[in-house]
């Protein structure tokens, strides 16, 4: 029972953050309650809205996993944004340069290539951390910017759009496109959502039942102890970051094959960074993470309605609310920790007096 209460705490923190963010709209002369209603209705009001929410949640499952898996190994991956760009550019380059590959093969190939693109970027940060001692937080921040520059060059110079003036790549071959499920009124919900769910399930099982999963967790819990126990912790750090990057790279499949059919510059509304609170809220648990990705999907879709439905609030509120949620969740772990500490010192004091 206490375990349930423990895992509910970040959810409560997230709700507090949400209410704080929505409460801010009072300053803009809006009724916060109405704003909340607009957000909820915008997210799940019609089957199309629900579809869009699921569409936004899909990349967040991937980036959430990309943050959560290294987190379990004691590494902080804030490079999911760069990794997903590399995955997307790899898929776009594949689809543009080999346009005639037919359906089942093209899908497999796209998944592999997207994974490889992101994995390369993650492995770089992992290698730098494990073998050169460079802190992964700084290197992944820097690699994000390098990826942004590099992908923009590849897209605009090597595979530029042939049919439009927008900053985007040419269209990929038709055989690569994934079909949207008919359930959601035309919203681009494709098999990528199922892929995300299966991957999350697979990672949960792998963490629980495999030797590699155990090595990963051991490295995260105590690197020194893991090393003495004979685990190659450096290699573990390297491949964990590689897999994390690869998972972020799969966002490329959801976007390029499942939605636009091309790499559009700036397609990601910071999926990589939102992956951090998604992972944190779930305490890096792969299955819980699917739920928190859904919550952030609701936020993303719901707040996008604010431009139209309210007079003074724009969708920038999405960023503010997300930020409040992030900060509340971040500070929540701290509060729990403080309370534990207080209990401990109280217990100690009690013994001293007794």
């Amino acid at each position, binding site marked *: 029972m206490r375990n349930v209460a423990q895992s509910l705490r970040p959810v409560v923190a997230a709700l507090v953050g949400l209410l704080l963010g929505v409460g801010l709209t009072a300053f803009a002369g809006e009724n916060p309650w109405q704003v909340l209603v607009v957000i909820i209705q915008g997210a799940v009001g019609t089957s199309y809205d629900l579809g869009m929410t699921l569409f936004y949640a899909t990349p967040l499952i991937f980036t959430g996993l990309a943050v959560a898996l290294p987190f379990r190994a004691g590494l902080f991956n804030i490079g999911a944004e760069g990794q997903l760009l590399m995955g997307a550019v790899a898929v776009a380059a594949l689809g543009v340069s080999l346009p005639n590959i037919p359906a089942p093969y093209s899908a497999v190939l796209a998944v592999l290539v997207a994974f490889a693109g992101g994995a390369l970027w993650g492995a770089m940060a992992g290698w730098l951390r494990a073998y050169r001692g460079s802190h992964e937080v700084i290197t992944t921040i820097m690699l994000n910017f*390098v990826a942004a*520059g590099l992908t923009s060059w590849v897209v605009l110079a090597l595979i530029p759009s042939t049919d439009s003036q927008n900053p985007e790549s040419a269209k990929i071959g038709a055989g690569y496109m994934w079909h949207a499920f008919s359930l959601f009124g035309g919203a681009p919900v494709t098999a990528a959502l199922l892929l995300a769910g299966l991957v999350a399930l697979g990672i949960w099982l792998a963490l629980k039942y495999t030797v590699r999963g155990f090595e990963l967790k051991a490295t995260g819990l105590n690197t020194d102890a893991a090393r003495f126990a004979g685990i190659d912790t450096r290699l573990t750090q390297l491949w964990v970051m590689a897999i994390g990057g690869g998972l972020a790279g799969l966002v490329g499949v959801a976007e390029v094959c499942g939605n636009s059919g091309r790499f559009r510059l700036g397609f990601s509304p910071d999926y990589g960074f939102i992956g951090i609170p998604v992972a944190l809220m779930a305490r890096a648990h792969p299955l819980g993470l699917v739920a928190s990705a859904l919550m952030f999907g609701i936020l993303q879709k719901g707040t996008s309605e604010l431009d139209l439905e309210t007079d003074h609030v724009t969708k*920038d509120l999405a960023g503010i609310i997300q*930020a409040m949620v*992030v*900060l509340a969740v971040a500070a929540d772990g701290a509060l729990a*920790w403080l309370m534990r500490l207080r209990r401990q010192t109280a217990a100690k004091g009690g013994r001293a007096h007794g």
Partner: protein
Amino acid sequence: MDSYLLDICGASARLATPLIFAAMGGLICERSGVINIALEGMMLVGAFAAAVVTYDLSSPWLGLVAGGATGLLLAAFYGWIVLPLRANQIVAGTGINMLAYGLPPFCAKVLYDVTGSTPAIDLVHRFAYAPIVIALVLPVVLAAGLRFTRGGLWLQFAGEHPAALAAAGINVARVRWAAVLASGFFAGLGGASLSIFLSSSYSRNMTSGRGFIALAALILGKWKPVPTLVACLFFGLADAMQMRLQGIELQYLGKVPVQFIQILPYVVTIVVLAGFVGQARAPKALGK
């Protein structure tokens, strides 16, 4: 040729100004043992407040102060979350940045009923050169302060050996609070120099990663004021070259893609972090 060189130097110093302010803010914060990846956000709110105050009161000096004060205010929020609440500094920093992306457009909508940018400020009400001068003097003052004053010593001990500082009867948390607030103030000045010196208004996400470049300069400068200043000037030069190299063909190399020059600071930082060109050594107690 001479005038071309002079032109490049001037442009480098101008473009380095926001970086220098932010990097010095980051330096103070990180020397005290607190990571600050929220420099970008503090710059953004500083840029916005400076543009608003300068536009409304027609005084760049008041704008500059407002920019610094607003950066400080956001830093106080950050400090509250990471110091007494002990939240993870990376996550909190990311959250602060997200907040700072959203807040200015939200306020612009409330204040001027526009989305995104603030109204343009008249040329006469903008700075001509003052921020450059302050930015160039600041690192020297800071270097001297770190070396020769008691506060400077406290700051260094807070980051290297907080236990020793506490044993000496100094409140480590208070030193770190001061450092976090100062970092917000300087980052705010950096943002202000962007909106009322380099350009004439606030526009959406106008820092475009400069907070992170400042962080890169800080690492490149090994957390020391004057080397960090040099790193900022180097990145300023890269920025100045990028504008001038657009569309120019180089002998043998052909066209240099603009993106390659834009990513230069980050690549340089990664190479330095990897220890290929001297080792970067962070304060020992950073993030602890």
